């Protein structure tokens, strides 16, 4: 009896799993549900498009936001400037992955000796999650170079990236910490009982499990980071957003903004699919 129930629940899990692993879920099985999904999608978006196209202001909006000539003229220079966004993002992300982990580990240290470090980590995350990113960029971007500290770069780009690193480290550290705390203490006990030191247990047993669990929220923060690279423009560097402003000013047309938006979307979609793939691979391996 119990055995049969076990089998049934296993079949149910398999069904849910197979559905989950699909990127787009049609909500059913077989060709019929796919057909229904396609028809309902066409109808829904058809109605939306009809409403927009038939609205009173559409001809003007089309002219100033969806202008093909302006798009073609501005896109190359924006795409060029967008490379700077990608560069900022890649550098910041690489640094954040490490610094955030360090902060999370500091915060999870137990024992009274480590109180100052723990307190420091808490104060840091509270501070940088609290201040709007735009203010951090302004304050550091204009303030820090003015200090003229020796051997520290004064370029706005450097301080722009530093601002993003400081803010996002605070967020990502909290994500890591949630992951670390989600690993059952019995895992660490098992590792320690085998004679592994605390750092070894953390490195080989707790962190690998923690990071796998927080991959989706981690990616979420990185998508936020990709978009916030535009904030660096506020202190000088000409990245995609600043470049599109320049193009808009030259053409009196808003299409360059849409071109920029398109570029950001194109950057985030592969990231989202990559995470889906990583999660699916992990699930396959462990089952």
């Amino acid at each position: 009896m119990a055995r049969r129930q076990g089998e049934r629940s296993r079949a149910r899990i398999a069904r849910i799993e197979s559905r989950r692993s699909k990127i787009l879920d049609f909500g059913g099985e077989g060709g019929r549900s796919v057909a229904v999904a396609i028809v309902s999608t066409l109808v829904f978006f058809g109605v939306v498009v009809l409403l927009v196209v038939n609205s009173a202001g559409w001809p003007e909006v089309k002219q100033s936001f969806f202008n093909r000539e302006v798009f073609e003229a501005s896109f190359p220079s924006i795409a060029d400037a967008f490379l700077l966004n990608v560069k900022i993002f890649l550098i910041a992300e690489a640094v954040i992955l490490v610094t955030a982990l360090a902060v999370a580990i500091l915060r999870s240290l137990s024992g009274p000796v480590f109180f100052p470090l723990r307190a420091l980590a808490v104060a840091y995350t509270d501070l940088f999650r609290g201040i709007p990113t735009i203010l951090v960029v302004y304050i550091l971007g204009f303030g820090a170079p003015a200090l003229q500290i020796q051997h520290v770069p004064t370029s706005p780009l450097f301080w722009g990236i530093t601002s993003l690193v400081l803010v996002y480290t605070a967020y990502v550290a909290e994500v890591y910490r949630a992951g670390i705390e989600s690993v059952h203490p019995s895992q660490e006990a098992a590792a320690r009982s085998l004679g592994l030191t605390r750092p070894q247990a953390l490195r080989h047993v707790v962190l690998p499990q923690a990071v796998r669990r927080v991959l989706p929220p981690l990616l979420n923060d990185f998508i936020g980071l990709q978009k916030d690279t535009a904030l660096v423009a506020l202190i000088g560097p000409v990245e995609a957003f600043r470049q599109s402003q320049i193009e808009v000013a030259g053409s009196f047309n808003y299409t360059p903004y849409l071109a920029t938006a398109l570029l950001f979307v194109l950057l985030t979609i592969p990231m989202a699919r990559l995470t889906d793939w990583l999660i699916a691979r992990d699930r396959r391996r462990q089952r």
Partner: protein
Amino acid sequence: MSALELHDVHKSFGKVEVLKGIDLEVAEHEVVCMIGASGSGKSTLLRCVNLLERVDRGRIVVGGEELTARGVNLNRVRRRIGIVFQAYNLFPHMSVLDNVTLAPRKALKLSRSDAEERAVELLERVGLGDRRDDYPDRLSGGQQQRVAIVRALAMRPQLMLLDEVTSALDPELVAEVLNVIRELAAAGMTMLIATHEMSFARDIADRVVFLDEGVILEQGTPEEIFTRPSEERTRQFLQRIIEAGRL
């Protein structure tokens, strides 16, 4: 020299005193089974021996070295004492082989090939040689528990602590795990076992210890404890076990 000595061991969690002065000796190659109701302190005692819990008072000596002395290197001590848990606690993100070789490689600094050779040999001994590349989720409870035993053995411990290792298993899987433990006993492994499997205890133990509310109420050969217990509490406990059909 005894393999394990406990002298007046006390342990409290908050206001609850779980161990109220335990004295116990386990000789080399001896198998001692601890029986007693849930909450009598069996698991806590084992976790104290492994230093997963610090004792409040008393001394624990393993192989002549006092673990409870100041400045003892916990990691070095734990390498000599294997423990197997009720819930297996395998590492779910690692293959069976990596589960077994992790500690020998990282704690004993064995090379990967040496560690794997030792691991495969042990896995084959418990009949799991062909599952080395599987992840724990793919194994049955009995197989997982056998891997957990192998993982502890891979450190070549002087002493094995088994904490109700069959309590989480479906009844038909219990035997395969108990057989592995029998083989260990036959090979001369010193073991301290907390168990609810009375017939197994009777069968394998050199000595049975009855724990009741944090004290050792009585101990003796399986014969003495199971057929002529001298304490009323022991009799009551065994009576309940018999009524539950477990003896």
